[in-house]
């Protein structure tokens, strides 16, 4: 390759990196500027703390913050053990041929659009939840968490199996030589080695759960009040943005969108930093 071409390629790659990296900051700046009027006179605190009662002129997003945290927490609580089990199975215990087929299936699942999960949820899950729980419509945190948990599982499983498979073969041979059983090898050699990958998978999956709009919008019920139980309808921050975006630009309803965006942004940032921090302290 000629030096000029080499140079051009290098600069091209650099440009892509700078562009995609700066988008993170540009989006943050955009939301900050659009939401600027909210920062005058402590409105932001009131906005995050208050209930959503447009009829009385109160436009707080507190119920949405609670709902978002609840739904992502429960979906992850559901998906994490499930995915860990699946990954252990396909990454170490299952015969290679079955593991390969299983993996292909999971890969297909990651590509299914979220609206399909929402649709399936409405027609299959919601009627069952309606009949057998205290939820009157079946549209509630429980339904949404369950569906969302299923939705984020493939991401988790793929990450977990990848990191289990990345454990050096020499380690496994050493464990075999010491006479470890398959489960012992998994728990004492592979999992400690794969911890980093497991954490990375968790971050991505939690990000997906926090940021998902369609599933929550379709099956969480969207009631804008602080949920009192798992079987109450609730509105996530993302669903709130989708519901209010058609309101007119000057209204307070519309302004609340930027508060939602900022809160979501802060959540994701805190989460990534937190998990990274755990990862670092564990290494020492």
């Amino acid at each position, binding site marked *: 390759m000629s030096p000029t071409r080499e140079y051009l390629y290098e600069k091209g790659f650099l440009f892509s990196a700078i562009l995609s990296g700066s988008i993170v900051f540009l989006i943050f700046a955009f939301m900050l500027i659009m939401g600027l009027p909210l920062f005058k006179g402590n409105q932001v605190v009131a906005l995050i703390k208050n209930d959503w009662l*447009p009829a009385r002129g109160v436009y707080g997003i507190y119920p949405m913050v609670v709902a978002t945290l609840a739904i992502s927490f429960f979906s992850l609580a559901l998906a994490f053990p499930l995915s860990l089990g699946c990954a252990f199975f396909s990454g170490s215990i299952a015969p290679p041929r079955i593991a390969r087929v299983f993996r292909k299936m999971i890969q297909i699942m990651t590509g299914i659009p979220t609206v399909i999960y929402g649709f399936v949820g409405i027609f299959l899950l919601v*009627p069952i939840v309606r009949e057998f729980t205290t939820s*009157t419509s079946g549209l509630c945190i429980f339904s949404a968490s369950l569906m969302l948990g299923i939705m984020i599982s493939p991401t988790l499983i793929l990450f977990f199996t990848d990191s289990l498979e990345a454990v050096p073969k020499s380690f496994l041979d050493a464990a075999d030589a010491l006479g470890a059983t398959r489960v012992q090898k998994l728990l004492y050699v592979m999992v400690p080695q794969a911890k980093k990958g497991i954490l990375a998978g968790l971050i991505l999956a939690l990000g997906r759960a926090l940021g998902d709009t369609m599933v929550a919008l379709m099956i969480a019920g969207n009631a804008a009040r602080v949920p009192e139980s798992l079987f109450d309808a609730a509105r996530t921050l993302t669903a709130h943005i989708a519901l209010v975006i*058609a309101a*007119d630009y000057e209204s307070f309803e519309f302004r609340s969108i930027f508060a939602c965006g900022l809160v979501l942004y802060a959540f994701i940032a805190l989460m990534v930093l937190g998990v990274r921090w755990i990862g670092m302290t564990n290494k020492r």
Partner: protein
Amino acid sequence: MKKQLVLMMVAGLMGCMFWTQGMVLAGSLDAFKNEKGTIKVAGGTAHIPVMKEAAKQIMTVNSDIQITIAGGGSGVGIKQVGEGLVDIGNSGRKPTDEEIAKYGLKPVQWAIDGVAIVINPKNIIRKLTGTQVKDIFAGKIDNWKQVGGEDKAVSLYTRDEASGTREVFWEKGLGKGEISSKANVVVSNGAMKTAVAQDPYAIGYVSVGHLDQSVAPVSFDGVEPTLESVKSGKYPIARGLYSMTKGEPKGLAKKLIGFLFSPEGQKIISEKGFIPVQ
């Protein structure tokens, strides 16, 4: 990559739609040929889907015409057209005599927006009084047996904050009464029908033009919500959709309002769930 492909397909599809519509509807759109200029429209949100579709068809046959459509609500529509900021103001109520006199407005009504209360067809209830409806939506009545139905909890459905249907229902059906914050929120008339059709204990409301077999309409104070009863004014949860100009309509604004009364315009109006009026 996949996203791009989908986008391209959507763009292609839309292109096809524009093209065929342009062919079929050339008749009433002839008035817009050889015209040039802009029309600014603002006001009522219920009008927006109709206005947008009309604008799309007009701009397709003549790309020299620019039509912008903004929301803002009825009050904004009346005020902005009165102050000359826009060419056509939309409102979901007849402007008051005061407003008409002050700005010299010329309002025309081109549609009626009626809202029917709907339940699941399996529910045996077929009539409710105004007070019962108010109490159900406020959450005071929370079991169907309190209005003579099964011993099952009522599941409430309402529309999003920006919905014009919600505005009419809240104003005329509930007398601006409270809607329980426990109510599930859906985003469109279609989503409301799906939700109510799926949930045997549901109650919600849709534009009368959207009524079909999947949901059962409930009579309100003894009046059935039908196209006829809304048209005759017997059914109370309804309002007129008005467009107005400052002074006699002229030029492009006149042609746009005229288009709404043409067969194609009337077709758009009924497709969007309203009842066209002559």
